[in-house]
């Protein structure tokens, strides 16, 4: 097996601060290599350094050997498309928003491979048919779904015939079912050459196999065969990362506190239409007090809309929603949002927001410190605003704010999908635990069936 790409002590710096500590690796033909780590672990910098795409101000040290030769930046750039390519993280941003899909593949055959326009078009259409996009070539990227856009981007990137393929978070933001398809597509594309994948998703690493590098905060913590690392992780961090996968969670469903809990919401034959599309038809279910109910389904299936409808934020097309608990006030029906920073005003500190709430509802302030301790929130975050705390902290602060109002129902709309797996696990567990303790019903939305399975009493599949 020939070595196509070899890194010796490659490190990335901004001024004197080291963002990525020296790392050495070799990419061999036919053997995929995967780098696993959470956001901010410096793994994307590595791919950018290899390509020669580091943002201004970052410097790289060490040796990057491509096809057995140390090359300058310009020499490596000359290999783009033909020999070496990087797949984009966000396909929607990486495709020209104004150009038809097929033309974005065609131009590679035309300009990089030097074919005639007619031949290039034919080849592009054949490529699209192969990835299941036949008949979608005339669409612009904004008319494609996330999975389709990612397939288009991969097709366009690999049309130039590159042997070394770098994939930076190729499955980010995709549903589980779409994710596996992309992994298979990557594997077929890389048959001729070699594939370096960067991901935060343990499952993706498992499916790709080959060599695995685990990184934490710009540092390599473990290296070896993917199968052996994932089954027998040595390093504590790797172990934590694997344990954070919902499929590896132990069942944390708490028993409903009152055995004879009363009904809280009775939904009967709900129908919801949006934009001329029926999201769900004649859906009936009951949510009891203090119950944790999960909703699963692919993106766009109406999971969030169902929760909004129960809260009265969206009007339903037909059917009925009966709130059985007539003593609960309107502000005891609350929602946790998917993107924590967007759910807070950034104009004042979190402490000010909390004071506003305390003043409005005359809340007993002595309840705050113990609750903050339970949520592992440091007192210092009250001084800061929502943009300067981490997503996990902010989501826990959102839970704190909600619990102070003694809610009877909490709609948690993918509350952890923007968080790293380890943080996500922690937040989900705290949410379920504290809500159950307060006898508050939770409607938990997720695209991950495993997560729902491990946390909910009742599951609604859409």
């Amino acid at each position, binding site marked *: 097996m020939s070595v196509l790409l070899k890194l010796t002590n490659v490190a990335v710096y901004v001024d004197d601060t080291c963002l990525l500590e020296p790392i050495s690796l070799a990419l061999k033909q036919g053997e995929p290599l995967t780098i696993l780590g959470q956001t901010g672990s410096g793994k994307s910098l590595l791919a950018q350094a290899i390509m020669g795409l580091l943002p201004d101000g970052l410097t790289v040290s060490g040796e990057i050997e491509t096809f057995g030769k140390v090359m300058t930046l310009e020499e490596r750039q000359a290999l783009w498309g033909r020999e070496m390519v990087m797949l984009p993280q966000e396909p929607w*941003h*990486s495709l*020209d*928003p*104004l*150009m038809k899909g097929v033309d974005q593949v065609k131009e*590679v055959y035309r*300009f990089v491979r030097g074919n005639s326009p007619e031949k290039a078009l034919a080849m592009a259409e054949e490529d699209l048919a192969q990835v299941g996009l036949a008949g979608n070539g005339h669409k612009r990227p904004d008319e494609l779904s996330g999975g389709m856009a990612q397939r288009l*981007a991969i097709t366009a990137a690999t049309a130039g015939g590159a042997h070394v393929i770098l994939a930076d978070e190729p499955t980010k933001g995709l549903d589980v079912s779409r994710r596996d398809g992309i992994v298979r597509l990557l594997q077929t594309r890389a048959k001729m050459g070699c594939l370096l994948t960067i991901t935060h998703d343990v499952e993706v690493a498992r499916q790709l196999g080959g060599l695995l590098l685990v990184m934490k905060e710009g540092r390599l913590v473990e290296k070896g065969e993917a199968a052996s690392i994932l089954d027998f992780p040595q390093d504590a961090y790797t172990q934590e990362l694997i344990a954070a996968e919902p499929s590896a969670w132990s069942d944390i469903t708490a028993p409903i506190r009152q055995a004879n809990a009363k009904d809280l919401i009775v939904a009967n034959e709900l129908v919801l239409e949006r934009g001329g599309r029926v999201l769900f038809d004649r859906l009936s279910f009951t949510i009891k007090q203090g119950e944790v109910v999960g909703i699963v389904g692919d993106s766009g299936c109406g999971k969030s809309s169902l929760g909004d409808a129960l809260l009265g934020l969206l009007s339903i097309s037909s059917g009925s929603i009966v709130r059985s608990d007539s003593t609960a006030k309107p502000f005891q029906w609350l929602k946790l949002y998917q993107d924590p920073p967007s759910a807070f005003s950034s104009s004042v500190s979190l402490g000010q927001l909390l004071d506003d709430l305390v003043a409005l509802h005359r809340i007993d302030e002595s309840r705050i410190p113990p609750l903050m301790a339970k949520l592992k929130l440091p007192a210092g975050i009250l001084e800061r605003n929502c943009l300067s705390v981490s997503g996990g902290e902010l989501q826990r602060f959102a839970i704190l704010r909600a619990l102070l109002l003694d809610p009877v129902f909490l709609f948690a709309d993918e509350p952890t999908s923007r968080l790293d797996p380890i943080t996500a696990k922690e937040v989900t567990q705290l949410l379920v635990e504290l809500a159950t303790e307060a006898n508050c019903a939770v409607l938990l939305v997720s695209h991950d069936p495993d997560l729902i399975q491990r946390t909910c009493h009742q599951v609604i599949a859409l």
Partner: protein
Amino acid sequence: MKAMLLRRVLQLITVVWGVGTLTFILMRSLPGDMAYRIAASRYGQDNVNSEAAALVRAELQLDQSPWVAYWHWLTDLLQFKLGDSLVSGLPVMDSVQHMLGHSLLLALSGLLLSVLIAVPLGLLSAWRGNPLDSVFMGLSSVIRAMPVFVVGVLLLLLFALNWRLFPVAGFGTPAHLVLPAFTLAISLAAVSNRVVRDSAKQTFQAAFYRFSRVKGLSEWQTFRQHGVRNIAVPVVAFFGIQLVSMIEGIVMIESLFSWPGIGHGLAHAIFARDIPVIQGSALVMGILFVLLNTLVDMICLWIDPRGVKA
């Protein structure tokens, strides 16, 4: 597309109604001796008598009740009966047509020149970056601070009065067009070059632009395939916004250079209180404005079809 056209047609109707109503109010609010003064300017100071004034009053329907007069005024307008100038006595329609030709010549040459100046400078700014960028941007903020007539006065002082390269005012030869067109072009370009620069910078930094290079296309191929059109979207949309400045600029420039266009006509008519001409020229300006906006909307939709559904 349909919604856009409908909106523009409605706007066209409001232009006609708005201008008609404003000029009607203007006419009714004329002070009592205005009929005399108008008669004086038409027939000469010595020939004014109460008969001539009464004639003028009847012509302006000042003797009718306001609502009847308003109704007549609007129906005449809808039939494009614009009446005769109170000063020259010539049909407004004819003089407006004549003025429109001159204004269009000035507007189009000014706009074309501004594109020829702004696009290359903006692209150069975005592509080369500092220090060139700072120089261009600094220069354009200084020019932007000057009202268009100040730019005109400066050009006039330098090129017409000092170096005597071009005629001071008037029309007839291509040389007469140079200074007015450049005044308009410079004041428009000082704003639009920033838009071109920002749009180009944004496109050059866009993920799809980089992805095209990573796919293997050369810098020039990437610019041609993905740069031109994406840069053009905000720029063309901005030309729509700039139409306001263009029409405002024309009013000022025509007055400054005595260019016999609509703006010059309007300013003069307002000064002389020649109501039918005020109405006619404001109307044509409004219609021109709406039509040009429609044109810009259509070009925008053509280069960026994403808006079609929205």
